[in-house]
């Protein structure tokens, strides 16, 4: 009964550590205008706006979407604000896509952003809560012990994370929008960088970025109109899903969370994928800390449990000759406007199957995975997009 959904336009900002040339409204508008231009439509063509961002405390504004209504052309229209922790950029896209899939709207503008330079995410994540374990050291401090557990379980070589750090930064050199540009990145440089949260070096961690991402999602009819007017083909949504599980309980597998596996299984079933490594041409996966590449390779079914690191080590996930390139855009390790980071994964997957990824294009890409996770690796949002209209 669901309507087909297409990505008919995408836009993103030039991600930087400080975008002090724009206000928050200017930042989101920059991405939104690019998405509208790509879709060949105007503000008037948009039926509704769905916006997402990570915790409001990251900028110190309560429900900033209220103030952004005019900047995003939402006045007189429906506007929804999604917040699902780090996965929010992906969840926001999924919520927007359901507005089209459910037959409610023809064209929905979806936007996600973070202006990290306006505040301090580390502080915002570390506010003590009564009766709750404090994060204190931010996300890296939370995930480092889980990474250690992965290393112990899998026996992965110590340099696996460093390889990811180098690979994604090399990818970023091919993406004009990426925040980090490190042409001289090397294994030595990563290893020599300061140890932040053992085993994560400074260069194995994502940056703090200001940035926004936007997409225009449309119905079959809207997709046909966009393609006719722009000459650019849409990306079709072949499957989408969200899954959540509790932060903590005895026996929870934090290294390979059930919610991630379930979410992937759901989205693959919708997209008719039984072997993701073979059937997908590339993937944009939320890897904010280097070691999450091998961990998610296993969680998402690209490798058997305990063997994800072998793909990383063999170069399989590199745009330079790998059979299943991951994060050709440079990924979260190269640009991290937190709330937008998930949507950037979804957006980059769409760019690939539209053949519009430029220098970081995977040749002939027809099917790609976009992935986001958040909280204590407990919230997941994913979609599979394809060049072909789904049956």
């Amino acid at each position, binding site marked *: *009964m*669901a309507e087909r959904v297409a990505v008919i336009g995408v836009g993103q900002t030039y991600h930087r550590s400080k975008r002090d040339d724009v*206000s928050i409204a200017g930042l989101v508008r920059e991405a939104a205008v690019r998405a509208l231009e790509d879709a060949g439509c105007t503000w008037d063509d948009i039926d509704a706006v769905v916006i997402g961002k*990570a*915790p*409001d*405390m*990251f*900028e*110190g*504004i*309560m*429900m*900033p*979407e*209220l*103030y*952004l*209504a*005019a900047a995003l052309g*939402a*006045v*007189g*229209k*429906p*506007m*929804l*604000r*999604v*917040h*699902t*922790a780090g996965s929010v950029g992906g969840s926001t896209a999924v*919520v927007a896509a*359901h*507005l089209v*899939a*459910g*037959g*409610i709207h023809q064209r929905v503008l979806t936007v996600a952003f973070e202006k990290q330079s306006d505040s301090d995410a580390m502080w*915002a*994540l570390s*506010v003590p*809560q*009564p*009766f*709750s374990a404090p994060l204190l050291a931010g996300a890296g401090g939370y995930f480092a012990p889980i990474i250690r557990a992965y290393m112990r379980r899998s026996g992965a070589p110590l340099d696996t994370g460093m390889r990811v750090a180098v690979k994604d930064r090399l990818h970023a050199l091919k993406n004009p929008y990426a925040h980090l540009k490190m042409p001289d990145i090397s294994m030595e440089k990563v290893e020599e960088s300061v140890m932040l949260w053992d085993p994560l070096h400074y260069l194995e961690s994502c940056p703090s970025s200001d940035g926004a991402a936007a997409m225009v999602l449309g119905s079959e009819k809207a997709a046909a109109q966009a393609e006719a007017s722009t000459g650019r083909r849409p990306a079709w949504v072949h499957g989408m899903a*969200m*899954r*959540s*599980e*509790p*932060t903590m*309980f005895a026996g929870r597998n934090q290294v390979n969370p*059930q*919610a991630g596996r*379930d*979410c992937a299984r*759901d989205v693959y079933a919708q997209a008719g994928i039984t072997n993701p490594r073979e059937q997908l041409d590339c993937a944009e996966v939320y890897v904010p800390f280097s070691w999450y590449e091998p961990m998610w390779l296993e969680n998402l079914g690209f490798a058997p449990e305990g063997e994800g690191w072998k793909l990383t080590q063999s170069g399989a996930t590199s745009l330079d000759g790998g059979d299943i390139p991951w994060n050709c855009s440079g990924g979260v390790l190269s640009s991290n406007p937190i709330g937008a980071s998930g949507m950037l994964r979804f957006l980059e997957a769409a760019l690939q199957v539209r053949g519009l990824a430029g220098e970081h294009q995977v040749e002939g890409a027809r099917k790609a995975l976009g992935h986001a996770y958040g*909280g204590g690796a*407990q919230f997941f949002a994913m979609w599979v997009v394809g060049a072909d209209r789904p049956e």
Partner: protein
Amino acid sequence: MSQIPAAKQGHRPVAVVAFAQSHVVRAETNSNEVEMLMPVVHEVFAKAGITKDDVGFICSGSTDYLIGGPFSFVTALDAIGVWPPKSESHVEMDGAWALYEAFVRLQEGDIDIALVYGFGKSSLGDLDKIFALQLDPYTMAPLNPDLVSLAALQARVVIDQGIATEEDFAAVAARSRRSALSNEFAQVRRDDSVEDLMAEPYAVSPLRRHCLPPISDGASAIVLVAGDRAFDLVERPAWITGIDHRIETHAIGARNLAVSTSTAKAAEMAGVGEGPVDLAEVHAPFASQEAILTTALGLPSSTVINPSGGALAANALMSGGLTRIGEAAQAILDGRAKRVVAHATSGPVLQQNLVCVLEGA
């Protein structure tokens, strides 16, 4: 099988089959958000005759700024126990918008049952300071205008434009408090005369204390069911025959504060005027806002307004709008009404509004 009334939005009928709420209080000091929410979730499941395993989608509404920390919705999930993992989402909005998201999610036919909830504890902080942070961060927030002063500016426009008087505000408050006498979950339940209320000093002119909502802690939850399955669970499902929401500009000076164009548009889209309205649950936290909203909704004079007492009797933030939908739906579930309207508001001085029409089969 009863006939399902046709809906304005969506192609798959969706009904409210159960509603539950906490006792709304000034300060829920004995329980945290999860503990406040858990009995409400259990009650709504019991009323619908389902368990969490029957639920295909969960959506909630809350805001981090009430708790003063990131991710207030994360631990709230422990009130349900999402194991095995669930398809779940959250809006940083009143639970009424979570209900909208769930309504949309149920359109595709792959799932039939959704749980929606909203919660908030206003007692944890200073609402005037918190809500100033909801304003334009560059031009308004630094001025630190408090909630009551903004509402007073709006009330002044209402008076100046001849829409209502201070006595009318007092009459709204008196009626709301009296109605709440029959609502055990409400917080301000009194039989006050308009004369007594008018004798109060101004809080911020032209608003007296009775024009202000109470400060409240509370939670509410709703179970939505799509299709004929609703009849398996309850005798009289409350079918959502129209639901829409709209937002206005944030620039308060650019709006005529005495009218609510977003409510009027949402009401038109939801088809409020396309049939009689037995009762309406209107989310008007300030007494001065009710006339703006009933006008925008286009409610006939015969409609009973806020039989629950409304937000003037209990104002649990982030669940207040969802509770309006729940209270209106309950009248259909109980067989007390055939066609009802629920309204929810968000943002400074009625910036964003949602309208929901529910009908019995």
